[in-house]
């Protein structure tokens, strides 16, 4: 596929492939349009399999004409068969896509790698972003690797781990007094004033394309087949909808056969504009003021909300939300059954999966993929409670006594 234009998702108006993100005619979001060059599926497949061990093996399906410059290639993260978790939830075939296994430990490396490569191609010397934390880590790291200056804007009250894991790369870290939606508004205004590539503002059409690679990898890792259902967190709804777009593109090109999977979205109760709109039957989201431990999903004004709602409804899925307590339990459940330690967003996904299983919405024959988008070490506060440490003297008797006391207690 070759990128041809930026096309408005609302009215279809087309624009050249520049740093542009919304339609001048109707304010709708722009998306990269491609033309299919009539390559046959087996040739495309051979090319992918001969490619690099990361997302650039899918460069033919991304908004570039050659292999992009990128010294920090993300992708090809493990897709793990989660037998013990499936058993615990009473499910059949369950897979966990562990996207914490990326260079900066979240799926944001995918979108940022694409955006930074595009920024270099378009001649920018500074990249920037509005972030809830994971994106900040990724932008700072990929900018450092590419030798670009960077400005990273985050809510000042972010988890300390995410601030430290951003600052270390030598970026200009800016903590804003306000929530993510305030940061985002500021960056949208700054985008007018500064000659910077804001990965999730003026480069958003390219950046969002990076999420499609999660769909491609899933298909490849499942032996060129599709799952029946996916469970995926929703913040702005971009990841959720781009995974579907990735599956659809490969279905159209004949790289994989079958129906689009059922899409279940996962949000936290404390920031659930999409789940609320789903439950109320609205086709747009009413903005909310976030209050949840799942800070990486704390977007009260989700840009792709309408499209996420449409996708959940069209595929027979849904959008659920879960409490902070359920999020903590979800993190522990995943850790105890798979050995994967996820951040709060992953807790939201697993708690939603558990809820669907409990409601009997997932039939035993279904092949389900749950997307784990980030690393537990970034949100340690969420697991501060919930375990016990034995404290002993360095003697066997001391251990025996401590274990005996615990059993008798």
């Amino acid at each position, binding site marked *: 596929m070759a990128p041809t234009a930026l096309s408005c998702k*609302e009215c279809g108006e087309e624009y050249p492939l520049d740093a*542009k*993100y*919304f339609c*001048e*005619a*109707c*304010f*709708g*979001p*722009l998306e990269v349009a491609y033309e299919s060059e009539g390559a046959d599926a087996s040739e495309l497949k051979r090319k992918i399999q001969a490619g690099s061990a990361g997302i650039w093996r899918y460069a033919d399906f991304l908004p570039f004409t050659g292999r992009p410059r990128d010294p920090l290639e993300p992708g090809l993260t493990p897709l793990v068969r989660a037998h013990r978790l499936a058993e615990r939830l009473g499910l059949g075939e369950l897979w966990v896509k562990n996207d914490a296994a990326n260079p900066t430990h979240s*799926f*944001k490396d995918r*979108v940022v790698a694409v955006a930074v490569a595009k920024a270099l191609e378009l001649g920018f010397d500074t990249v920037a972003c*509005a972030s809830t934390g994971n*994106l900040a880590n990724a932008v700072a790291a990929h900018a450092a690797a590419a030798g670009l200056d960077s400005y990273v804007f985050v809510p000042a009250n972010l988890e300390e781990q995410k601030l430290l894991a951003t600052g270390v790369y030598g970026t200009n870290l800016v903590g804003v007094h306000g929530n*993510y*939606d*305030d940061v*985002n*508004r500021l*960056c*949208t*205004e700054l*985008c*007018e004033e500064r000659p910077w590539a*804001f990965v*999730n*503002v003026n480069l*958003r059409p390219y950046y969002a394309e990076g*999420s499609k690679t999660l769909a491609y990898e899933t298909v490849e890792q499942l032996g060129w087949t599709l799952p029946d259902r996916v469970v995926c967190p929703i*913040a*702005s*709804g*971009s*990841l959720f909808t781009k995974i579907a777009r990735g599956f659809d593109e490969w279905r159209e090109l004949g790289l994989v056969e079958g129906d689009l999977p059922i899409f279940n979205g996962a949000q936290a109760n404390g920031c659930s504009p999409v789940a609320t709109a789903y439950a109320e039957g609205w086709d*747009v989201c*009413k*903005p909310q*003021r976030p209050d949840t431990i799942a800070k990486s999903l704390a*977007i009260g*004004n*989700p*840009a*792709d909300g*309408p499209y996420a709602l449409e996708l959940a409804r069209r595929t027979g899925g849904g959008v659920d939300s879960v409490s902070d307590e359920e999020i903590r339990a979800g993190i522990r459940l995943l850790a105890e059954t798979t050995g994967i330690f996820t951040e709060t967003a992953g807790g939201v996904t697993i708690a939603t999966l558990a809820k669907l299983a409990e409601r009997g919405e997932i039939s035993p024959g279904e092949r389900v993929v749950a997307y784990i988008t980030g690393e537990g070490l970034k949100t340690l506060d969420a697991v501060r409670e919930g375990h016990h440490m034995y404290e002993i003297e360095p003697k066997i008797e001391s251990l025996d006594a401590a274990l005996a006391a615990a059993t008798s207690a």
Partner: protein
Amino acid sequence: MAVTVKIPSQLRPATGGEGEVEVEGGTVGEALDAVFDQHDGLRERITEDGTLRRFVNVYVSGEDIRFQEGLETELSDGDEVTILPAVAGGL
């Protein structure tokens, strides 16, 4: 009320290059109407059937009007009304 309406750069061709338009209006809706009356072509880009298009965000002094009274949100003298695309940000 005399207020300032800030126009995103992509729409400035419709305002003759102006990034800020000074108008009178008691509510956000009235202020926007005053801008639309001065500048042809803005109304249909920003509104549809009398309501804001779904990818348009409007802020009064930094606060999203959907947390207030929408287009009925009352304005004070010197308020700044900012029009921004809603498609930025997030994942």
